């Protein structure tokens, strides 16, 4: 413990050198220039649609109206998208031209609405003749309790009326002719940005992107400057080094999470839900910095993982309150919690368990590589993975047990890949179902076969020659892991549509999935023994697995 703390302390001292005096001078300079320049720059200057439509107008009032909208470039002669004259409108049937017409129409509507508002005195009877329709929009929380101003339904007195989150709706209470008119005129309705929950969750996740970047930089530095080797030579053990180096960043992120939770008014549970998210960011950054061969590769790995994790966390939140699928992401639970909903244990386990498992495993495999060769030698990612598997087997003792255990341990990785595919393809499922099903099943089968082949590859290289037994053990291990995960209450996701395709066989007789898993692993092992490269052997197993899955789905009647 003391060693861990001293590594953590060293890490904090080191981070100071990143922000030296020259850096601070530069940052201050940039800040000063920004402050000076800011008053000269309006928000509108960043709109990318300035001058998009070319319009020729020979109609004086319209000329001035369109000139006030930056989207239009008004010309007197030359080719245009749209010609508006007193005799009518001339346009071509191109997309551009039609879009220009629609934009002009929109601008005129805005303008005439504005004109009418100023034309009549507010709250006068004429005003209400010009604006004969008023609407009040109320957004309901998850209880969907409707409380009308007319008080037709008021079974529960706790009104949710104040939940009106759209700040664009400015209620205009008017005395009028003895009536209260509230709400907005139709023109002023502003549809809410549909992904408000995403905005909220940004607050949590943005610091994670940055801190994990710093963290991985620090570990990569250690590898490049070879200081890590000196630490390894000291009595500090690999895991102590990893924990010590990670601890400061973990604490910083925890502090950020607590702050964000307080800002949003969430409870302790929110912090608990976010814990696996912090871990997954740190663990992917850790694995990236241990496996990358250079900084460029590290940057690319990090961007790749940020995007994968980003979509994994954000996309499902768009379906909060719409689809069960949204509970894949812990952020959905955060949004629910902030809305005051009760979070079930099942939901909690489902959102956290995969992330927690994968991040702990990633730390485990990364730590196994914290040795002289692992840190220095720039070998391919696959070799690094095999190396860490070999080391893990060494710790596990008996090789038979090792193969089974590794098959089981790796299941969460496959599971995460499948969840990720679900996230990516969920919203485009309707566009081309066959294509989506095909691609996602192919990817998940390949990943599955690779994980089962890893332990056999290691042992075959060491000279074990009972390939069939290796395949059987690995397949069985994987099968056990899969069933174990299924016990963690996945029913809601596994059922239906794409879920059924990805987790194929999950609901069938146990013999069939066991058979398929064993068969795939045996083919891979035999293939390698036959002299194929691992890639080729795994591909062969995947192809067969893919077709068997296809048959099962076919008979299951998914396409029917």
């Amino acid at each position, binding site marked *: 413990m003391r060693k861990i703390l001293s590594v953590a302390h060293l890490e904090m001292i080191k981070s100071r050198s990143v922000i030296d005096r020259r850096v601070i001078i*530069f*940052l201050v300079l940039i800040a000063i220039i920004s402050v000076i*320049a800011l008053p000269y720059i309006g928000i509108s200057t960043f709109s990318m649609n300035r001058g*998009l439509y070319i319009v020729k107008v020979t109609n004086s009032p319209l000329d001035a109206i369109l000139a006030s909208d930056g989207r239009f470039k008004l010309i007197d002669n030359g080719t245009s998208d749209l010609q508006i004259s007193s005799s009518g409108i001339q346009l071509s049937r191109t997309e551009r031209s039609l879009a220009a017409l629609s934009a002009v129409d929109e601008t005129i509507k805005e303008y005439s609405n504005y004109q009418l508002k100023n034309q009549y005195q507010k709250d006068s009877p004429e005003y209400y003749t010009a604006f004969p*329709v008023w609407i009040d929009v109320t957004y309901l929380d998850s209880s969907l309790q409707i409380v*009308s101003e007319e008080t037709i339904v008021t079974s529960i007195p706790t009104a949710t009326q104040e939940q009106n989150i759209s700040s664009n709706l400015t209620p205009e209470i008017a005395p009028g002719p003895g009536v209260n008119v509230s709400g907005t005129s139709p023109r002023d309705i502003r549809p809410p*940005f549909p992904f408000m929950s995403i905005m909220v969750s940004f607050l949590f996740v943005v610091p994670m992107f940055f801190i994990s970047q710093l963290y991985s930089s620090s570990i990569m530095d250690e590898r*490049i400057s070879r200081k890590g080797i000196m630490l390894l030579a000291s009595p500090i053990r690999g895991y102590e080094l990893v924990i010590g180096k990670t601890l400061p960043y973990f604490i910083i992120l925890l502090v950020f999470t607590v702050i964000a939770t307080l800002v949003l008014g969430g409870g302790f549970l929110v912090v608990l839900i976010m814990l696996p998210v912090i871990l997954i960011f740190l663990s992917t950054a850790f694995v990236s910095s241990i496996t990358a061969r250079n900084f460029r590769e590290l940057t690319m790995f990090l961007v790749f993982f940020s995007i994968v994790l980003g979509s994994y966390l954000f996309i499902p939140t768009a379906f909060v309150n719409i689809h069960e699928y949204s509970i894949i992401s812990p952020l959905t639970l955060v949004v629910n919690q902030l809305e005051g909903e009760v979070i079930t244990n099942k939901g909690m386990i489902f959102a956290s368990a995969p992330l927690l498992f994968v991040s702990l495993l990633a730390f485990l495999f990364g730590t196994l590589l914290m040795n002289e060769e692992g840190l220095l030698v720039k070998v391919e990612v696959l070799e690094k993975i095999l190396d860490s598997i070999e080391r893990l087997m060494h710790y596990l003792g008996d090789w038979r047990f090792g193969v089974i255990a590794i098959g089981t341990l790796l299941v969460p990785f496959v599971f995460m890949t499948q969840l990720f595919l679900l996230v990516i393809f969920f919203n485009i499922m309707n566009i081309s179902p066959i294509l989506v099903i095909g691609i996602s099943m192919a990817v998940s089968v390949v990943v599955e076969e690779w994980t089962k082949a890893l332990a056999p590859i290691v042992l075959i290289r060491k000279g074990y020659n009972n390939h069939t037994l290796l395949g059987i053990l690995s397949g069985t291990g994987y099968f056990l892991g899969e069933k174990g995960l299924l016990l963690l209450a996945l029913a809601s996701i596994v059922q239906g549509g794409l879920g059924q395709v990805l987790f194929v066989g999950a609901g069938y007789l146990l013999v069939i999935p066991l058979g398929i898993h064993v068969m795939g692993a045996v083919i891979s092992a035999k293939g390698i023994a036959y002299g194929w490269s691992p890639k080729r052997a795994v591909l062969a197993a995947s192809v067969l697995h893919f077709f068997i899955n296809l048959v099962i789905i076919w008979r299951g009647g998914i396409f029917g």
Partner: protein
Amino acid sequence: MVNGISVVAKREGRMLLTEKTLFIAILVQLFVASFSAFLSLGFAVMFSPSAIGPELAEELKIGVVGDVEGISGSLIALMSDHIGVIRFATLQDAQAALRTSEVDGVMNIKKRQDESLEPIQLELFLPKNNFKSSLVTVQIKRALEQFQDKLRMEKGIEVMKLNSPVDVEDVSKFFEFKYAVLVPMLILLPAFLSSGMIIDMITEEYELGTLELLRVSPLKFSEVIYGKMLVMVLIAPIQATLWILLMKLNHIAIYNQLEILLFLTLVTLILVQAGAILSIYFKQRSSVHLVFSAAFALLVLLSGLLPVPPMNIVALQAAGSGVGAGNYIWYIVAAFILHLTIKILPEMSE
């Protein structure tokens, strides 16, 4: 000099290909594209749900309660052109239907004491944080605006209108989103990635200490830097070409392709040079990335002072609206100033 640069450029180019960094870079961009397309779809929907698909708008249903006599009856008729309408006797019934997702929202038409004096007042209840709620709002807004126009006409209120030969409601609002958001972002993304990569390439040499080896090699420091920069500048238009092809496959026509690629090269040249200068000056990777992010934000801010900012230039060129040639001068000047700055760095004259 030129010979030395091309030797380094070839070596770096080969390394990019063998290490599959470029492959990962392209993969990353595909992810960014799909993610941004998804997010911005949310924005697009706010203007027209048909952006997602007409069948989605048809699936939407609203429960209507309250005073459906007289004039409100014609409102309901108008609404059913835009959204499925189911009538309920009481708010309780409508609420029950909302809970079972039979309807996506509930509208209450308030009772009026005096039809001639009071405006029509409506209450709309929608589930919070629901994607469909935004769609419902858009559809209801359309119906209500048409209804309002009708009432105004009956009362003889003059409203300025466009006598359009085509029904504007049917026009997809996707055009603006496509050219003014999606295309500029995707086209300029390679420039940003290149600047990140040049920083990694140069600082790595410092941290590995490999630059020391140059003293015994025939290559000069400046040749190494220029060689690396050359590769990073050249790969940007190559990636953008792939983007343009990909968008073509998705039926997004890109006009002025050559101008766009040249402009991207210019922007990449500015960012890569800025990255290189900071890398040579600070040497430590984390520091360079920190300062570069801040400097990049500043550049984006300052580009707002230009008559036509970079993203706007790409949007206008891609949509075929055209940009005056004079607008490019600013970028050429910026690239040239940075070039002069690199030249006066003491390391470069060694």
